[in-house]
């Protein structure tokens, strides 16, 4: 019995990768939203000031919804908790995922208006929404349990293996996200971006050590023609982003990196190639797994240097790997075979 359970769990990344993704991502995004975003809105003093904040989805709903009055908090919490639990365990799973996805679109859309576009949740919230629409995401769920019980058929169980297009869509969205980031660097930074100095700035810039009033830098472009400077004569073009890493140990690494111009150039060029080259994942399992492996390292390294967790990105990347190919490789290793035999795992 125990052996079978262990064997089933080991096989899960191969047989039910999207169910695993649904379970963990719903919890990660949901709890992150519950703990940070929701409470933040209800302590916010200045909602009315942000008349210019409306994102496309906020414009779809009545204004009253975003008053965030104290008496509304309990309802928002209840809806969010139901959506998180329903999505994670797969109870009314697809409806719960749609609800959780929509809530995150609204909340973080509002957060964008307040001044903070969360570029991690922007991707993961879309993944949650997509999981509601694609096959394979409900393979292991309460819904599936009842479907099997009532219909006494296991044909639904095979949905993850029957249709690959769900994984293809998620992969396409991931590499499109990277591709867009790569294009933006060239669009706004031009070929100068390749000198590595931009990444060098962000690696060493400890934003929160500066006093209020000096946190947020605006970048001016002196090369703009006078006709483009009608607002202020300075040609303000963008704000800078924050490095929130506070570890003093990491700081030593940061300072060492920024003193190596060749390394900064290398990191920058690698980043652009990596971001633009994601379509390689469709060339076969080997390319897909290597690319996603580097994507995992990419987020881990940025997280280490800049203080971001990237748990959501890293989870999605892990679940999108071709685990069948990985298992096939690992299963042939001599030292692994006795372990698999003990669990009666002959093939995955």
């Amino acid at each position: 019995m125990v052996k079978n359970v262990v064997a089933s769990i080991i096989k899960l990344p191969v047989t039910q990768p999207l169910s695993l993704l649904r379970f963990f991502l719903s919890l990660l995004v949901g709890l992150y939203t519950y703990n940070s975003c929701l409470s933040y809105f209800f302590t916010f003093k200045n909602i009315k000031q942000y008349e210019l904040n409306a994102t496309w989805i906020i414009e779809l709903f009545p204004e009253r919804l975003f008053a965030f009055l104290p008496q509304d908090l309990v309802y928002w919490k209840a809806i969010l908790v139901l959506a998180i639990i329903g999505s994670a365990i797969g109870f009314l799973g697809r409806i719960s995922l749609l609800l959780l996805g929509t809530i995150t679109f609204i909340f973080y859309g509002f957060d964008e208006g307040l001044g903070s576009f969360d570029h991690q949740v922007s991707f993961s919230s879309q993944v949650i929404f997509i999981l509601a629409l694609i096959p394979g995401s409900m393979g292991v769920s309460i819904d599936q349990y009842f479907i099997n019980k009532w219909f006494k058929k296991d044909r639904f169980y095979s949905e993850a293996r029957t249709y690959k297009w769900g994984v293809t869509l998620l992969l396409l969205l991931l590499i499109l996200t990277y591709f867009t980031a790569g294009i933006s660097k060239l669009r706004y930074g031009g070929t100068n971006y390749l000198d590595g100095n931009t990444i060098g700035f962000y690696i060493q810039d400890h934003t929160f050590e500066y006093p209020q009033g000096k946190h947020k830098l605006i970048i001016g472009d002196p090369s703009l023609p006078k006709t483009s400077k009608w607002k202020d004569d300075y040609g303000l073009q963008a704000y800078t982003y924050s490095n929130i890493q506070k570890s003093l140990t990491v700081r030593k690494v940061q300072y060492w990196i920024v003193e190596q111009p060749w390394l900064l150039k290398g990191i920058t060029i690698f980043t652009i190639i990596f971001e633009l080259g994601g379509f390689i994942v469709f060339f076969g399992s080997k390319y897909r797994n290597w690319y996603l492996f580097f994507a995992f390292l990419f987020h881990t390294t940025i997280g280490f240097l800049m203080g971001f967790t990237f748990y959501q990105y890293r989870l999605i990347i892990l679940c999108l790997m071709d685990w069948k190919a990985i298992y096939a490789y690992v299963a042939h290793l001599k030292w692994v075979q006795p372990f698999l035999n003990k669990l009666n795992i002959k093939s995955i």
Partner: protein
Amino acid sequence: MNKLFAKKWYVVAVFTLVLAPNLFVAIAGVESFPFTQAPMFAHHIDKNSDFYVFKFEGVTADKEILNLEKYYGTSERDFVRHFFGKAYGVASGINPFSNKLGEDTKEKFEARMRTFFKNYTAFLKKEYNLSFNEIQLSIKKVDYYRNDVSNYNLIGIYNCSTNQYMYGEKRSSINN
């Protein structure tokens, strides 16, 4: 559901629903959650770059000036990001921090500034019981390490009574 997943029209519809808005913002160069053209860390910076910080000050009827940094109602980081991204906008090209297509015009800019300052002055009154004749907007230049390079220069004045924002060519009269 399984039958639906096998329908070609459904697959095409889901792919379009997901990819079309992402492609649109990437090409148009705008963002509106959750769709983004990923402008983070994209503008070129080096040690010779020009950096600026904003300052908002309230001017009373008695000509007393109060730095409003403690009265943003949020962190300076978020206040300035909202102000620059949604109200002030970029000097040239499409604003990558908003969902507005097309380059900025004076009419649109002035309308946004009026909206921003009207709501902000109402907030200052309600939350802190602060009333001003004017709100002054200044910037100063800082270097790569945020050391001051210049003093603050006035770039605009919002008149709380007339709900007008004066800037640009009218700045010479402001500075006097």
